[in-house]
């Protein structure tokens, strides 16, 4: 176990290094730069722009800039934002809360609905419900998230006036209920894809478990169907689901970015979008590294849990 963990960690570090090289190259090779926004303003002369490029170290060769960035990173210094002069970690820290709130609540919602739909689908295989659930899941996976978000806003905010059209809370209110009210829309939109994924996996996972020997044994012993379902099948079907969740971190992050854009949610997705349009290199790199760590953690946890769930899995 220890050796496995160590190997995985080393592997992850290697991956992070590759991620950083790719990210850094993509960002810095793109035309334009962090000074464009000032050039557009017109107040700063070419001399001013050149001086600031010099002061920010943007004139040096890319490999050197990369090594410097890496060396600072190794020492735990994530750099300072070009845009608001704050430490990158501090900036990420102030946006991560909103994103986590959205991701966790929507995952929870997706789990509940997805598990329910999946289990019911597995028990009543080939029923009308199962068929509708299958079609529903397929459509949910196919709808552009932002379009669904726009429709939700159009129907529930503009049309019916039930939900706020955006923001995390009303300024000057910020009570729990108020925040909850603002959370509903984006949460539903983000949960759509995860619910579909969950219900599909839950269904097949459940189908596999139902046919296992111990479930048959339990049934033969005459245990009530409810007990069999909850105590035996569901619990055993759930574990693989947790690993799925771990593997779906990137999908969830992508979804969050789009949802945050539609609902003007002040989270990491918004931050990433803004930072990339201003070419705020340190922040963009910081977010890329941060999400890469999240993704790797997700898959590590998935692997670990999978190993725990099924000791037969050989650890690679």
């Amino acid at each position, binding site marked *: 176990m220890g050796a496995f963990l160590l190997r995985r960690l080393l592997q992850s570090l290697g*991956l992070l290094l590759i991620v950083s090289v790719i990210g850094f190259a993509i960002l810095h090779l793109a035309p334009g730069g962090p000074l464009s926004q000032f050039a557009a303003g017109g107040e700063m002369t070419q001399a001013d722009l050149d001086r600031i490029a010099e002061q920010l170290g943007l004139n040096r060769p890319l490999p050197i800039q990369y090594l410097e960035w890496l060396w600072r990173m190794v020492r735990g210094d994530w750099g300072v934002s070009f845009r608001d002069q704050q430490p990158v970690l501090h900036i990420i820290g102030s946006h991560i809360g909103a994103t986590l709130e959205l991701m966790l609540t929507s995952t929870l919602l997706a789990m509940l609905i997805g598990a329910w739909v999946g289990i019911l689908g597995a028990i009543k295989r080939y029923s009308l419900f199962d068929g509708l659930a299958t079609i529903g899941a*397929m*459509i949910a*996976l196919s709808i*552009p998230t932002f379009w669904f978000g726009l429709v939700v806003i*159009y129907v529930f905010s503009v049309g019916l006036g039930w939900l706020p059209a955006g923001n995390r809370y009303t300024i000057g209110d910020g009570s729990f209920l108020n925040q909850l009210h603002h959370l509903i829309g984006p949460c539903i939109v983000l949960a759509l894809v995860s619910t579909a994924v969950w219900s599909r996996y839950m269904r097949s996972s459940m189908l596999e478990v139902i046919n296992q020997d111990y479930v048959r044994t339990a049934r033969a012993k005459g245990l009530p169907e409810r007990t069999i379902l909850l105590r035996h099948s569901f619990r055993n079907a759930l574990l693989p689901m947790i690993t799925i969740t771990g593997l779906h971190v990137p999908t969830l992050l*992508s979804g969050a970015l789009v949802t945050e854009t539609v609902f003007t949610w002040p989270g990491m997705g918004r931050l990433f979008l803004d930072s990339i349009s201003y*070419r705020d290199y340190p922040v963009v790199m910081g977010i890329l590294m941060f999400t890469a760590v999240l993704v*790797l953690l997700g898959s590590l946890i998935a692997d670990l849990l999978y190993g725990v769930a099924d000791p037969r899995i050989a650890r690679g």
Partner: protein
Amino acid sequence: MSSQTIATPDLPLAPPPTFWNSPGLRRFRRHKLAVFGAAAIIVMTLACIFGPMLLPYSDTFIDIRQRFAPPFSGPHVLGTDPLGRDILARLLMAGRISLAVGFSAMLISMAIGVCIGLIAGFYEGVIGSALMRFVDAMLCFPSIFLLLAISALIEPSVPSIVLLIAMTSWMEVARVVEAQIRSLRTRDFAVAAVSMGSSNTRIMFRELLPNAVAPIVVAATLNVAHAILAESYISFLGYGIQPPTPSWGNMLENAQSYLTSAPWLAILPGAAITLAVTSFNFVGDGLRDALDPRMDSH
């Protein structure tokens, strides 16, 4: 972004008796949704290819006196956009672009993914693991992040958008192919080919690849769905295909400001995207079942 996990089914190694009676096709036909999906794709493709020729309006002709005509209210069946252009004509032309982008991006990403997967699976060792670590690293980026970062590199045009999507969607394929090839390598026929002294390229492309076709076909179908969605996301985030060329994505993007005053502008292209993507997903799902013999036992 829906990134469905692609299953790697075992392979039907026995050659099929005849095409139409092949068990695979029978399974596919049994899959009603897949048949529906395939039909929808065919209808949509034909409509997009031939439809614009049958319409009295061009997709780019601006007639500002006719702007914002709602659907079913006059000569323009699906109404007009803010510049008075016929929405049906634009939807169909946009379909050409979006479907073409979807297919071309799929072809390129399959080419990249298959090659990398093939090489990595065949040469295991240093090359193989180096390639797969690269794949892993690319998968560490949430797909939208990668799309956004790269779209900053390029000037938006149809070919560059195709490349952009392909560059961000070949990794899953590479993984699938790599796993498949790795398991095939140890099979008898592959070992036999090696002992007969066939060249590596020949073994890879003549012996191994044909046997990995099933998962590749499934992945390819799902990849088209992914690419159509990706095009709409790029447009939504403001890096999409340039006007006046319509695509479903940029039609949707431009409709945002008119969501309250002219909701049909957003609903129509959104529905088109959803229909197309759902159809490809249905077909992909059906193909997966059809090409996976285990499904017969269920």
